[in-house]
């Protein structure tokens, strides 16, 4: 495992840069966001004279409108997106953007934001407060006021905050030096690291919390599970250990380098840089490009909708899995043109003609507004408007 870390670090550190380089090479030029959101209609057409594939029925189709700096987005590198009623928050490399009533407003360090680069976002649905994990601390946006917590002024374990979520009175945080929890009632910070959990590495990328369980995605140390009732920790590792080959595909977590977790309906969805996993508490099911509709095994983010359906944000496009079939939305990797492909249970892949695609195929964040999807990419923010 250790020998892999430098490679993976390079992936992580250089991901945005490579994505940007890819786009600057012109491959994606067609789909770089224009000054105004693309207002295209007719998202889906049947493929020539062929009837739409059966798998397409039930798979969502979207018309994507893309936002960039040209129409007010603070920066084109968008790490995270959060839907908050009619408001959309975008965590970018150069500020926290708020899209409201058709206009963007940008919050920066001069407004109290901990750092200009916003890596993660979470909504406290009860209070409406938004929590922003940044490269320089954790910020709380409440009624327009921003309070920031750093490793110097608070109990926060580290200023690089990759992930954040709110559950009840607790804010759970994933940082470059372990996980931590802020109790909003008492103000107490509790840190989780190699000293008090079975965490081998402390580079924690994401967190997902429910009243019963909390899951940390640890970069190089699998998944940590915290039982809120007992206070006990459990750990899920790749049964293949440090072997990059998948010897036992569905016998455990697909890989130790976990980038994202999503716990919904008692199902744990996990993303790694080497495939995806689904765990129902007893059985694991893993997803690889070779035997699923995943466009890439390099998965940045995952969002479970329920026990059977999930969205995957990869370096090669946005993917949806409905429990049987897959759909991929992206600018073509070769032509840059918008494309959607559908893969059915038998492995048949059918292209679907579409006119729009997410702003970029390097997807870092996903959130939903009703049937619509919002996608954070390395080259803009995309609003997928569900089509009938």
């Amino acid at each position, binding site marked *: 495992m250790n020998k892999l870390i430098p490679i993976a670090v390079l992936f992580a550190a250089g991901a945005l840069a490579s994505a940007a380089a890819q786009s600057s090479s012109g491959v994606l030029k067609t789909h770089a966001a224009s000054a105004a959101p693309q207002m295209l209609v007719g998202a889906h057409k049947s493929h020539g004279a062929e009837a739409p594939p059966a798998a397409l029925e039930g798979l969502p189709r979207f018309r994507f409108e893309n936002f960039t700096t040209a129409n007010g987005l603070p920066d084109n590198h968008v790490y995270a997106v959060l839907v908050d009623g009619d408001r959309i928050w975008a965590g970018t490399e150069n500020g926290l953007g708020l899209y409201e009533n058709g206009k963007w407003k940008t919050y920066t360090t001069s407004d109290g934001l901990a750092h200009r680069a916003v890596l993660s976002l979470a909504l406290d649905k009860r*209070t409406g407060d938004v929590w922003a994990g940044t490269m320089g601390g954790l910020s*709380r946006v*409440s*009624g327009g006021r921003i309070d920031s917590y750093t490793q*110097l002024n608070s*109990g926060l374990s580290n200023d690089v905050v990759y992930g954040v979520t709110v559950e009840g009175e607790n804010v759970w945080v994933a940082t470059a030096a372990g996980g931590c929890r802020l109790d909003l*009632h008492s103000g*107490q910070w509790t840190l989780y690291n190699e000293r008090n959990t079975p965490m081998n590495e402390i580079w924690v990328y994401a967190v997902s919390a429910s009243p019963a369980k909390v899951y940390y995605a640890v970069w190089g140390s699998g998944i940590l599970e915290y039982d809120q009732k007992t206070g006990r920790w459990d750990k899920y590792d790749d049964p293949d250990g440090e072997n990059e080959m998948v010897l036992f595909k569905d016998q455990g977590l697909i890989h130790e380098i976990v980038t994202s977790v999503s716990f919904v309906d008692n199902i744990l969805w996990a993303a790694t840089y080497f495939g995806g996993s689904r765990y129902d508490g007893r059985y694991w099911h893993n997803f690889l490009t070779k035997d699923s509709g995943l466009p890439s095994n390099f998965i940045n983010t995952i969002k479970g909708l329920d026990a059977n359906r999930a969205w995957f944000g990869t370096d090669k496009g946005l993917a949806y899995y409905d429990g049987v079939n897959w759909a991929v939305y992206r600018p073509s990797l070769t032509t840059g043109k918008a494309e959607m492909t559908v893969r059915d249970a038998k492995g048949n892949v059918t292209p679907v003609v579409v006119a729009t695609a997410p702003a970029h195929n390097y997807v870092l964040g996903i959130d939903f507004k009703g049937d619509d999807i919002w996608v954070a990419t390395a080259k803009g923010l995309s609003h997928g408007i569900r089509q009938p």
Partner: protein
Amino acid sequence: MRVGLAAGLAMLAAAFFAIAIWPAMQRPARAASNGSDEADYASPLEVLLSPDGARLYVLCQQSEEIRVLDAASYAVIKTIAVGRVPRGFSLSPSGDRLFVTNSWDDTLSVIDTGTLAVVATWPVGAEPSSVVEDRGGKRLFVANRISSDVAVLDAQTGAEEKRLLGGRGTSYLALSPDGSRLYASHVYPNISPRRAGMENRTAPESELTVIDAARAVVADRMKLDGVAGAFHIAFSADGRLGVVAEYHPKNLIPLAHLEHGGAFAYTLTVFGAEVGGAVEVPLDELERYASQPFGVAIAPDKSRLYVTIGGSECVVVVDVPRLMRFIHAHPRPATGSFAQELSASGNYVVARIPVGHNPRGLALTADGRKLFVANRLEDTISVIDTRANRVASTIALTGPKAISPVRHGEQTFYTARYSFQGQISCSSCHIDSTFDGVTWDLEPDGFGRDIVDNKMLEGVKDTEPYKWNGGNPNLPTECGPRTEKYFWRAEQYDNRTLADLTVYIRNMPTRPNRWRAAGSEMTPAQERGRALFVRAVDKFGKPIPEANRCSYCHSGPKGTNQKLFEVGTRKATDNSGLLKSAPLTEIALTAPYLHDGSARTLEEIWTVYNPEDKHGRTSDLTKDELNDLIEYLRTR
């Protein structure tokens, strides 16, 4: 010279007198649940009229009860015991329930106004200070001063739904007349972001937190620039005019320059459709300040606005149409504040009605003809005839008539009568006998020199010497010559007054620690922190010199060995780096920290301001260990 010598001898005599009588003053007649020796006084803090105007409810903070009076005859109908140190109350819209916040036991008493009995007691957040029910009777909102939030409760069961982030020291609530918006004010300023070189030199800033009552979320925050503490909020009946009473300290100039423009402006911020953008207006007059405004009420016909002035012992009457004319006729300053214009109030203040000691809450009758004012430190209710602008009668509440030394000391603490132009009293900076969260330039030793953080007074007994530099050997010196000479710039205390003031301060009870309930065991994190606090060896096995251990300087029950140390926090603007080890009493509440308030949080004491390990050996600690140490300190 002779006069000076005589004055000096008098002060010395006063000091000895005070010391001599301390033991006698501390004999309790009957202990109150808050630890005070003064249980028999009622100390009316707030008043309320029933919707039909037939009853007057009086919240008596010291006797910890609600007294129900007939609003016409003023006869007592019933006295209802509530929880510890009640601070705020309100009626449900229908008037059938009275809610009382008990600030020291963190509960809410629910009183059935039909039976006049407590029918429920619900736990709430830390130091609940006021409560409001929404129009639909669905939710209760409770302002929690220590946790600085507004708790949202189910109005029928008391179950807490959530807490909304307030400003610092969330204390007073008011619902807009249409019931759509709830406004919360705060008695301490928000902690300002750290700015290099300006850590201890910022003007305070507070806010009015605006809550969407239907959704129970924070909808907006109205900034109150320059304001350290804000108190009661009121609305006109049509909802077009809102007002909040507030203190606006001038902390960037030496406090001792009282005669050169004052240490405070006492102001109102008025807002709403009638005003346009919010604007701050002073209540002070050129040579007569309105020290410590607290309660506000607007006449039903919006002709007058009444403000209780706690330190000036009066009610200020503002002519609302004239105030509006002033606001609209004068170019609004860029800051939105007229606070510095001492001639402004002459345009709209039409009367100052003398009332009793430390007037606080007030209530207007539905026809606006009578105004009831609670005189907290006199156990009376002034009944003001609003047409004549004079006190028509005074309701004396049942209780001791004699003024005890502690009571007299408290009156002295709260009155501004001793200071130049009646500008300030001890309570201007020690809000409700605590602190104000403001850093001050106290001494006349040059602008910007020796900036000091204001400190908590609770538990100050037996922690001499006083001042950060330990310059005052005892409380009579601290409260007498120092205060008279440097701050008041006016009348000196007589011997008895100084003695009583120091007795009051020495007897000030300490509120319950919210991080460690009495008798309860410490949490594992607190225990680990305690071990770090008392450790004599660092993590590398090296002995920590005695003077560099937490438990050496911060020893004893109050966390101070009362000696002076150099802990590496001296700034270029400090005259000396030698500082008294600060007591740790209620340390969790009193940010900012260090002598000059440069550390905004406990963490910053060590993460930012202890680079050489002079303020305790801490550089060997991991982040989680430092967190443990802080968890322990919060129990002190």
